[in-house]
């Protein structure tokens, strides 16, 4: 699957439709694939501090929407969840998207941080099944990509 530059949802949807068409002889996406509730996994992913790293977070409770962003660039700063005033753990905080690094081989000399933006897309008449998108910001190995997708799937299955 090709890389889409930028975080453009329309572009991603069009590219995905093209991707699905190209596989239509082999795969019926509606029949052969089971959707998972990725959005429901957001609180668990945020709570998984031993395998994720975050420098940006935006969430709402029933009263207030709050956004936090580390001022310094990602590789020169610390996790936003360690900030004194950040306290957006738990199911009371909902997010339209989750901006998170996945730490692979954490604590070893070969640690990699894979940056993803998980975004929930509002369903509409054309797409009645709730959809979400995983944006990966860099070219990464197939193994690391499989790891990240696998972890997101596991979190989503656990939350469903």
């Amino acid at each position: 699957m090709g890389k889409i530059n930028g975080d453009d949802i329309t572009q991603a949807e069009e590219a995905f439709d093209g991707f699905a068409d190209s596989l239509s002889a082999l795969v019926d996406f509606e029949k052969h694939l089971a959707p998972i509730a990725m959005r429901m996994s957001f609180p668990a992913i945020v709570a998984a501090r031993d395998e994720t790293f975050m420098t940006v977070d935006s969430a709402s409770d029933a009263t207030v929407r709050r956004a936090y962003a580390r001022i310094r660039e990602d590789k020169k700063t610390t996790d936003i969840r360690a900030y004194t005033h950040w306290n957006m753990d738990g199911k009371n905080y909902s997010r339209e998207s989750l901006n998170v690094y996945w730490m692979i081989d954490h604590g070893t000399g070969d640690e990699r941080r894979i940056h993803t933006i998980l975004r929930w897309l509002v369903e509409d008449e054309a797409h009645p099944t709730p959809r979400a998108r995983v944006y990966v910001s860099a070219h990464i190995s197939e193994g690391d990509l499989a790891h990240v997708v696998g972890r997101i799937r596991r979190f989503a299955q656990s939350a469903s």
Partner: protein
Amino acid sequence: MSLAGFDALLSRHPEQGAPIRQLQAAIRSVLSSDESAALSDDHLSQMAGLGVNEVREWLVELMRAHAVESHVARMCPNTGGASVEARHLSELQNEIECPRCGQIHRYDSRRIVVFFVATPGLLASLHAKK
């Protein structure tokens, strides 16, 4: 104990003892909670109750004393944090895929900020026993 660079600052500007100590207290407070914090003139100005230009001049003097170093950053218009930062403006590319929001950002001088960060010497003086 004084933070690195401040004794020299006080000796050069003995008549400015009070504001220099106010700035030192503000920097100590910021670094005590986050050693990698961005030290910005407007934020320190508010914390120390000093003018922005005054703080800026002290920070430049502290940079000459190797207590802080200047950084430039491209701020992400969507998240508010730095997309990328560098020591010099010339190191910033014209177009980047922002690691904060995933969108493509083209160079916009209105999104460039300058701030200072503590050097290892300043951090060592922060940890030194009083």
